[in-house]
């Protein structure tokens, strides 16, 4: 447990240390740059709410991948599942204007989760083929983005504008804003709920969560204890995909109010950043929330920092890569140390 807590801290420190090199190469003072990153995203109330806004999809994809990785289901496709969830959720959000919001919103959420889950299911190819989960989910990332782009220019096109977007979601499906004059929307609370309660509860307190951990740790032993690994993989794919799908519909219902093909940043979308977050959190749902906020601060603050120091905004992406690399490195070193000791 202590080791788990230390991992994000160690990785973060290492990232900041090594990350200072590009900053200095750009002719800026790392401490200034880091300070500005924090100041830029935490400077005032609105900025702070924006941190929450960005953290919501990050913690959902982070959670999705953390759960999947626990079962050794290598879900690199959270991006695709995010879009799949957004698509299915938007279909519901756009089409049932008569429903009262307390029915429409849950309905939409469920649709989003189903969309994400369906998109994750092809990953069970891992049962037959070694890289079955990785390549399939990865390919679906692209397929889903292209499909979304197709939909919003054709079948699901907004009749009122030229923008490639879907018709606006109905009032009854929009996540209400919880803090006036900000973009802090219901989806943020939903994300926190899912991460802190559902995710954590699942992993620590349910039999299914236990089975996910068991199969990820030792499939044969689990089989001998009466667990069916194939069934478990399917369940994991469904759960992971649905969490990512929730991130997708969250962006539509809370921020954009239309389905668009750019829900997720480029070049590194929420799906990939989710991998960074999941691994850096040691696959723990609670830490996923913390690390999601951390990266939200970094991503949001990068703009201010960049503007004021001249350091290119892409420092954020370099940080993500470094953070993931260091997390993996420290994980490896920990294992190695234990083996040496025994």
């Amino acid at each position: 447990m202590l080791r788990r807590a230390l991992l994000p801290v160690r990785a973060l420190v290492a990232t900041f240390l090594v990350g200072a090199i590009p900053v200095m190469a750009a002719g800026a003072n790392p401490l200034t740059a880091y300070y500005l990153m924090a100041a830029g995203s935490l400077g005032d109330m609105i900025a702070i709410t924006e941190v929450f806004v960005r953290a919501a999809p990050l913690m959902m994809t982070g959670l999705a991948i953390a759960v999947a990785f626990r079962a050794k289901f290598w879900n690199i496709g959270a991006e695709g599942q995010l879009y799949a969830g957004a698509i299915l959720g938007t279909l519901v959000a756009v089409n049932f204007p008569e429903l009262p919001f307390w029915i429409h919103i849950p309905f939409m959420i469920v649709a989003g989760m189903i969309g994400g889950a369906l998109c994750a299911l092809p990953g069970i190819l891992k049962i037959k083929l070694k890289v079955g989960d990785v390549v399939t989910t990865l390919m679906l990332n692209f397929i889903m983005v292209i499909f979304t782009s197709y939909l919003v220019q054709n079948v699901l096109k907004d009749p009122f504008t030229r923008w490639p977007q879907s018709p606006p979601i109905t009032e009854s499906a929009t996540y209400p804003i919880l803090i006036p004059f900000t973009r802090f929307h219901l989806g943020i609370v939903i994300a926190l709920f899912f991460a802190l309660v559902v995710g954590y509860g699942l992993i620590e307190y349910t039999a299914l969560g236990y089975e996910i951990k068991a199969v990820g740790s030792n499939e044969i032993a689990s089989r001998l204890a009466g667990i069916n690994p194939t069934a478990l993989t399917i369940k994991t794919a469904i759960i992971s995909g649905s969490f990512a799908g929730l991130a997708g519909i969250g962006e539509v219902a809370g921020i954009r109010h239309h389905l668009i093909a750019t829900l997720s940043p480029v070049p590194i979308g929420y799906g990939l950043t989710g991998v960074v977050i999941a691994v850096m959190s040691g696959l723990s749902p609670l830490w996923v929330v913390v690390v999601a906020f951390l990266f939200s601060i970094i991503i949001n603050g990068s703009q201010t920092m960049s503007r004021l120091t001249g350091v290119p905004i892409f420092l954020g992406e370099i940080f993500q890569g470094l953070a993931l690399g260091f997390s993996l490195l420290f994980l490896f070193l920990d294992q190695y140390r234990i083996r040496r000791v025994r």
Partner: protein
Amino acid sequence: MSEKIVEMKSITKKFPNILANDHIDLQLRKGEVCALLGENGAGKSTLMKILYGLYHADEGQILIRGQAANIDSPKDAIASGIGMVHQHFALDDKLTAVENLILGTKQARILLDMKGAKKEVIDLSKKFGLEVDPDSKVYQLSEGMKQRIEILKTLLRGAQILIFDEPTAVLTPLETRDLFKTIRALVSQGHAIVFISHHLEEVLSISDRIVVLRNGKVVGEKRAEETNEAELAQMMVGREIEEVSRLKGRKAAQPVLEISGLCALNDKKLEAVKNVSLSVRKGEIVSVAGVSGNGQKELTEVILGMRKATSGKVVINGKDVTNKSTKTIIQQKLGCIAEDRIGWGLLMDLPIAENLILGLHRSSKLSTKTPVANFLKTQEIKQYTQQLLTRFDIRGTDVSAPVKLLSGGNLQKIILARVLSQEPEILLASQPTRGLDVGATEYVHKLLLELRDKGIGVLLVSEDLEEILTLSDTIAVMFRGEIVGTLSAESATSEQLGLMMAGIKQPEGTKQ
């Protein structure tokens, strides 16, 4: 007496729990087949691995052709003319025979001279009766063919001394005959052969000289024509096994596990289990005795539902579970202590508590069923697992500690704790005390006897004769996939068992 080519003097090798080789002297001569006979753990494999550079001896010296030799790795051994034909062939299945042979031989220049290599292979193979199609892909070949490639590999590297490690275990009788032809051809060309085996009949047939090892020491050396199976078996097994007095099990009438006519193939699609029939009754310990590699692994896998039975039945408590899912089988109250304890029994990344509840995590004792999910009862789990630690005397740790920090003996206890706490009606224990020290072994034996007294049926698979004689009510001996005999423990003698385990079938009178 022909010339000595290898002299191993006073070789000693210690492992953490065991003295594998205890001041062993061994000589190998040109043009001679020397057999190394002994049970598993007697030290024969270790000794040869030292000669081949895979292990380093703690004490002792090796002389090759009269010169002191420093063998630090297989490379050195190969350079000294020593070649080893392993039990598990070191071949790349996807390549052809000649491609496998080219690797590491003098043939290897940048541009592969396939024609030249093929010619050399064909010439060599004709010389020693090792015909094999150079262009055939290895995965398509029979075990006998693959072995030929292994042998050719050692010859291509210039081996004068060839070590064969249990070579006939995977061969058909016909292939064995061909192998012996090859060995005789090699011998006539002056090669020295070491033949490691536990198959008495074959050993007597092919060897010139037989060295018997037991418990790490040489207990006897005989010329083949001067000895017989009975004498060798006695040397292998020894007379030290005290008749341990134990309470006779109270056997109930009905069998809890019945296996009839079971057949199964191994991973190489060869017959590994041939028409095996066994039954275990409540309150009875039935042992399957035999050296590893005679089908026991496949047998246990079939019982557990991890391998397909090609024919026959497995019935637990009257219910036919042949070829059903492992989940179904476990539900019939079958518990299992696997041979690969850690690999099959522990969740190394997780804490002790989570290891202890594996299999019970959905029971009503430890979880609450709700329409949303099965929630684990954390308090009950903590209590329950803590109790288990106490009951099984695992000290100095807490249920939330990671399991991988425990010692080997304690890991075994965790597995026992978990399996037994599920109150199985039939327990399958496979090599349960392998690698354990004396204290831990005694502990496990005590436990197994307790279970038997409580009315649980135990199927014990073991190669440790002492253990088998101590614990069993009934002993079935397995050799090359078949049950060669079933005895009641009271009337069994270690010589009989030794002979049966070495493949010598017993006369009808002793069969139950």
